[in-house]
């Protein structure tokens, strides 16, 4: 069975093995023992609350309890951009209008900004190809929302996730070719490699500072603004289901979208609920809406340091949930303990 849990100090070797299997698209999980060890130390200190909230980096691993193997990883960074500037382009609107000529022109405009400085970031999602089946991807990605719903005081109100931008099959980034190359005079791959080692903010020194009309860019560059890489489209949909939106911020190099949410508006904040582990009464079940019974549920314990989460078929009814013994063990819980529950998929409004 699969459990998503807070990473632990002794996960380093297994994490390294998995990192060797990550493709080139993810820059934050390079198979580098030093970098990885440093990051893991920060993650352990984060769950232990021994470093300030804005420095924390909560890493979660998905463990296959049958084999003890790590199946995936994901993370939540407490705050971005507080040690080096975090740049985006923000898409705004400027209207140029002349009553005399009866001309009204509405122009999209790119502003180089650090607006997202200090935001909480979802990042470093990776699921091993062997486990890319069923609801595993959802479980891994969405585990972070349940964690945030359980511990909202640890996070800033603004939550973001950067999505890899569109590239052609050849690897060419139309946005980079239409904009960045003129100012960097180097290949996209080189720029990408520099960002991988944390040099992103300094490359941004070369970016033009003044607002840019999108209309100046070549058509193919304009078209991909806010568009994700084909392989990232499913990940984007999962985040959008949870209440994250593209609000007009994009990556300065490939124009990949940043998805954003207010923490208080997340589906997990609105719809997740606490429940006590124990039997449910017939009366409770009778009143429960019919549709809910077939829904798989995300269920987590409520312990920061030993956060654990599973996917369950048990439906909570009026504050109680009848979790099977095996699931209780996965969560390190027992009858009478409180768990947090959320349907894996959003419910529709009846409106």
């Amino acid at each position, binding site marked *: 069975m699969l459990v998503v849990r807070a990473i632990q100090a002794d996960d380093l070797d297994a994490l390294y093995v998995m990192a060797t299997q990550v493709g080139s698209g993810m820059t934050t999980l390079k198979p580098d023992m030093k970098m990885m060890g440093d990051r893991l130390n920060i993650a352990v200190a984060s769950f232990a609350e021994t470093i300030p909230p804005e420095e924390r980096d909560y890493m979660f691993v998905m463990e296959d309890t049958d084999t003890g193997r790590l199946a995936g990883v994901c993370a939540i960074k407490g705050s971005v951009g507080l040690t080096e500037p975090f740049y985006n382009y923000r898409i705004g609107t*400027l209207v*140029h*209008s*002349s009553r*005399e*000529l009866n*001309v009204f*022109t509405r*122009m999209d405009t790119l502003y180089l900004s650090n607006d997202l400085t200090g935001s909480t970031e979802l990042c470093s999602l990776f699921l091993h190809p062997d486990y890319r089946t069923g609801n595993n991807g959802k479980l891994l990605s969405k585990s972070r929302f349940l964690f945030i719903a359980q511990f909202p005081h640890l996070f800033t109100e603004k939550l973001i996730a950067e999505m890899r931008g569109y590239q052609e099959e050849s690897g060419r980034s139309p946005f980079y070719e*239409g*904009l960045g190359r*003129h*100012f*960097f*005079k180097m290949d996209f791959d080189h720029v990408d490699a*520099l960002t991988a080692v944390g*040099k992103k903010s*300094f*490359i941004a*020194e*070369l970016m*033009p500072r*003044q*607002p*840019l*009309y999108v*209309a*100046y*860019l070549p058509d193919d560059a304009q078209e991909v603004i806010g568009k994700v890489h084909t392989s990232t489209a499913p990940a984007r949909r999962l985040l959008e289901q949870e209440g994250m939106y593209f609000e007009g911020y994009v990556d300065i190099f490939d124009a990949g979208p940043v998805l954003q949410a207010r923490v208080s508006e997340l589906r997990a904040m609105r719809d997740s609920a606490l429940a006590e582990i124990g039997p449910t009464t017939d009366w409770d079940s009778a009143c429960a809406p019919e549709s809910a019974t077939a829904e798989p549920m995300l269920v987590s314990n409520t312990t920061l340091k030993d956060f654990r989460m599973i996917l369950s078929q048990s439906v909570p009814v009026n504050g109680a949930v009848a979790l099977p013994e095996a699931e209780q063990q996965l969560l390190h819980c027992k009858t009478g303990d409180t768990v947090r529950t959320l349907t894996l998929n959003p419910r529709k409004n009846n409106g």
Partner: protein
Amino acid sequence: MYVVRPVELADIAALEALAAVPMPGVHTLPKTREKILAMIELSIASFAAHVDIPSEEAYLLVLESEDKSIVGTAAMFAAAGSNGTYFSFRNDVIQQVSRDLNISHSVHALTLCSELTGYSQLSSFYVGEREHGTPEAALLSRARLMFAVLAPHRFADRFFVPLAGVTDSEGGSPFWDALGRKFFQMDFLDAERTIGGARNRTLIVELMPHYPVYVPLLPGDAQAAMGQIHPSGELAFNLLTAEGFEADDYIDIFDGGPILQAHKNSLRTFTGALQRRVSTSVEIPDRGREPQLRYAVSSGSEHNFRAVITHCPSLESQLSVALSAEVQEALNVAEGDTVICVRI
């Protein structure tokens, strides 16, 4: 002898004929009889005016050939945009520096600016084909500045000259297509017609980009058109750069044509103008040894301005200039009067 003189009412027919010659760009003469008449009247009033501060005066000079026909025009506006703001693109250079990557290069950017507002503007320079490349063409161009030397209070300390930019065979402008069209949503020629060639209208600030345009983002043909003159402007360009005008700092917001500009102290007419008293030249064969130099010489009266070309020995260390009776008559000066002379 060719004479440069202020335009007169009697010149209207000749100017109408000139206006029928196709000329590119916008910095040319008015086309309709009504507008030509208005321009002539404004010029006559301007020459006659007593000016304290340069304002809406416009001066139109014509080049009269030996047979008294009008073969050229040249204008001066005392203060560009005086009833508004004269807009242009300033050609800025931005240094892009990254210490980490050890990268440093420069990027050009065009910024809509109003810096040329209040400069004196030279424009509408035109000479007939026969006069192309002759000293008389140079005389016409320079006579404007000689008038400014004579009457500096009528002009600003800085001058600029917009020259028509390049257009394609259909009259389209690659620079316009990359920039102005996106905001005006119309063709180059339509836009120029709509605003009548003006660069001082509020609608420019309403429609044109407020933020610098990074040149590397412009299509190649638009970049290539920046600061390029229409072939018809080459003569004017060469005369003006020889005079001391500098290109490269500003370009036109519509067609990207160059705008030449200079402080008057950098202009050869200002630094090299000599005030000399008129004496009457007598043909003395044995003085023929002294090398004869070519000078533009103009009368010293702001209300009766004339300029012609004459040849005489160097005036550097002379107190007077010997002019033939014919030249004196053309300039309407007599012995003892002051004239302004510049090597040409």
